[in-house]
């Protein structure tokens, strides 16, 4: 019996991987019955899978090491578990010095009376997050597969060498970036996304002013951590609780100043 359409590589793979529905599977099996070369390829792919199990599958039957179980069952306080490396870096020390006597105590800083009104770029960053993070088809101008080009291009437009922070360790991958306008000056937006499709943006512009430590704003309904680290001002925006965004902003800071 012959089937109505030609089976592609994708069909053969999907068959091996159990991704076909009943109808397609029946159709494909009929095809294999009359196309021995494709049947042989299916067999090769199955043998590859079996070989991979032979190579690495023992891990499934071995007891989980105590060290791993212990880590999950008795997680250490976040301070020692999650963020040790950067706390020890010179960069962190520099940030603490740049901050006020409150050091890393963000709440203390925010409540301090001398803090000026939120700079306009923070609102811009929140606005740009609202507009572009919701964008499905084209959230960025240049995608992450051209990261080098993206960074070079934005650096040129901003007039200073930029870095796209690497947030992989928190599960956020670079989606890409775009050039924006902020009060007549160029600004850059890098967008990140985690597996849960939560998006975070890092907004950067060249800024005159003294270095500041982290400040928090959610006046526009979007959480924003912002700081100045010359020659740039940064604003990290996301629709996330403050605590989660704080963790990301530390990573951004660590990354950029490295």
């Amino acid at each position, binding site marked *: 019996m012959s089937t109505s359409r030609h089976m592609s*590589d*994708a069909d*053969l*793979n*999907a068959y091996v*991987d159990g*991704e076909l529905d009943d109808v397609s599977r029946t159709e494909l099996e009929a095809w294999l019955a009359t196309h021995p070369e494709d049947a*042989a*390829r299916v*067999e*090769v*792919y199955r*043998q*590859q*899978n*079996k*070989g*991979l*199990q*032979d*190579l*690495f*599958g*023992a*891990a*499934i*039957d*071995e007891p*989980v*090491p105590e*060290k*791993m*179980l212990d*880590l*999950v*069952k008795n*997680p250490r306080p*976040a301070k020692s*578990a*999650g*963020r040790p490396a950067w706390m020890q870096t010179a960069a962190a020390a520099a940030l603490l010095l740049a901050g006020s006597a409150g050091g890393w105590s963000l709440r203390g800083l925010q409540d301090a009376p001398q803090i000026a009104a939120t700079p306009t770029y923070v609102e811009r960053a929140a606005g740009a997050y609202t507009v572009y993070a919701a964008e499905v088809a084209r959230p960025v101008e240049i995608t992450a597969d051209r990261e080098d080009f993206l960074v070079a291009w934005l650096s040129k437009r901003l007039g200073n060498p930029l870095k796209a922070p*690497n947030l*992989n*360790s*928190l*599960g956020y*991958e670079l989606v890409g970036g775009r050039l924006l306008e902020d009060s007549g000056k160029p600004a850059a937006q890098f967008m990140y*996304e*985690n*597996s*849960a499709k*939560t998006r975070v943006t890092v907004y950067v512009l060249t800024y005159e002013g003294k270095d500041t430590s982290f400040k928090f704003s959610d006046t526009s309904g979007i959480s924003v951590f912002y700081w100045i680290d010359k020659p740039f001002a940064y604003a990290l925006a996301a629709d*996330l*609780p403050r*605590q*989660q965004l704080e*963790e990301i902003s530390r990573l951004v800071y660590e990354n950029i100043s490295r």
Partner: protein
Amino acid sequence: MDKQQAIIDEIPGLRRFARGLSGNRELADDLVQDCLERALAGLGTWQENTNMRAWLFTILRNLYFNQLRALSRRPNEISYDEHQELMSGTQPTQMDALMVRDLESALNQLPYKHREVVLLVGLEGMNYKDAAEVLGVPTGTVMSRLSRGREMLKNLMDNDNHNGRRSDKPPLRSVK
């Protein structure tokens, strides 16, 4: 507590995938340990009712990728020979041992982006949708990389045989 158990349930698979990626038991377990630390530190960002398995595999994969990048920036850190040595040490059980070695060597020759998808789907039995989530690419990309990866594996192993190396062994497809 439920979240913790959900993480523990994924550890065997994470260890297997990490062995496939790194080719070495100790490196793999270090990778899993790091992955668990990251996961616990970031558990707050994990959203209920999303895919815990895909989330954990994403973290592990990204950690490995970062390590690779770090190594490639400092290429002298691990020499080729050392790398080969690190890659050995697995114990084939069912398939013919040499055949499995061929597969292992072929796997090591695959470009990273093909290797990881072959491992996620072929070794871990992950469906295309989850694999796409882990790799951060569309499902169509998973399918094309998988198809290409398997074809490359096949050709690499066929070539080994055609070149007379281990010519006493039949090609993989005839192994029962």
